[in-house]
């Protein structure tokens, strides 16, 4: 666990420097100009066909989101077709709000090095923590920086 926290920040250092404005512009772009605030938000960024451990973690976040008053959890799915996303959400029984990135804009903007990843934006809207999805699937520990 210590290694995970310690190594993570170095590996992903450039991606902690991405500003709230960059991320909010990106969300606006992929959501047809929706104005968003990412303050106290966890974004789960993935494709529609991730592996089993990632899906298990998504379900934990779905449950967490229903119980949390302070942190908002949303997903960004990199996928061209709406039906593909609908099948994914229905089949996995996930209720989280989804932004669809149909042209992999996130990768072109280099906001994250890879997928699937989770990004925690703190109170100021800045990236507070980054981690792959599927490796540490306890939302509370992630939020609290454990």
């Amino acid at each position, binding site marked *: 666990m210590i290694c995970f926290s310690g190594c993570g920040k170095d590996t992903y250092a450039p991606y902690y420097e991405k500003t709230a404005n960059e991320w909010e512009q990106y969300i606006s772009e992929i959501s047809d100009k929706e104005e968003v605030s990412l303050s106290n938000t966890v974004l789960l960024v993935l494709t529609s066909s991730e592996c089993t451990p990632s899906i298990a973690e998504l379900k934990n976040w779905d449950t967490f989101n229903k119980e949390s008053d302070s942190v908002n959890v949303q997903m960004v799915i990199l996928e061209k077709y709406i039906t*593909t996303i609908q099948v*994914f959400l229905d*089949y996995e029984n996930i209720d989280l709000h989804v932004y669809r990135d149909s042209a992999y804009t996130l990768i072109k903007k280099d906001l994250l090095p890879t997928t699937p990843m989770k990004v925690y934006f703190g109170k100021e809207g800045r990236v507070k923590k980054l981690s792959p999805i599927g490796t540490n699937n306890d939302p509370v520990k992630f939020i609290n920086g454990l």
Partner: protein
Amino acid sequence: MPRSLVFLLIAIFALHCSRTPPSDSKKKSIELIQSDTVVLEQGTQLFGKFYEHMRISQDGSYWLFNERIRNQIFVFKSDGSFYSVIGKKGRGPDELLTVSSFDINKNNEVAIFDGSQRMLKIFTLDGRLISSNNILENADFSLVPHYLRWYKGKLAGTIIDLDSRFEPYNSRLLALINDDGSTDAVFGKFDRFSKQDHRETFVSLLAVDEDNNVAYTNLQSSPYFQIYDLESFERILYGGEMTEAFNKPSQVVTPQTSLSKIMLLVENTSVFAHIFLTDEYFIQHMQILTKEWFDTSDYTAKENILVFYDRETNEFIKEVKVDGITPLAIQNGKMYAVENFDPDHFTIGIYEINTKTE
């Protein structure tokens, strides 16, 4: 609706073959003529996304796809109507966690390798379980995804030795698995091209000719192919050539490279998506990762090229560019290609491969 032999938009052209001396086989003219277009019906269980793999029953009447989200096999009749779903999520005998690879045999039995459970499960076409067995117990190799083919009651698959993951060129290449999941034989040599390639690829494509007891393999990143005798396990040929359209990255790409950098490094490079066999040809399906594809994520924006070799002489014949479609399978002289990936209008075009000698 069947369409009578409509000449395809496909431009048939041999990309300038200056690197290869002329031979008689190059006087062949190969035409792809569209004979049908079929839209797959969404059934009671919706599909969201298929892997770019398709298997076809021997008589052509059933089409099988691996659904990426649900990890199930979707079966359609050749008119596009939904027929069945094979497997459901779980760890029970007739359940699956991951469909790593699958194939259908002459008796319409469907073999599925579940890589998450390390199990080989065999089903009927309508989804009834025939057998479920552990596979690769104590094995010192892994089966690579997507390439498992029935061969005379057994299953042939391409592999990577576990201790060669970082030096794949030292690995063996093929395994024959019995239908009870036990390993029958492991043999062959990995393509040495992987030593000079700039991508850490260890997926070898596979095509099996059951009647002639031969297996063709082709490393996904390599323009070369190998032919193995499935009775003696000896290599018959290391063949192929670096054709005009082939292009590898100029810099090393590793799993640690960020996706945004990978996009830049592999733009306009080639990968091999499939290999196919007909009585006459060995065909490589090469894809060029175009800028347009990276810009739009539209699968049909990849450039698709079929590289034809003569099966009798093993000589290169020509490259044929196919526009706007993605070939998935060739069976009984017909090519099946995706024309539309949208799950609401998932469309397969069927093309006859016609040869004329000039």
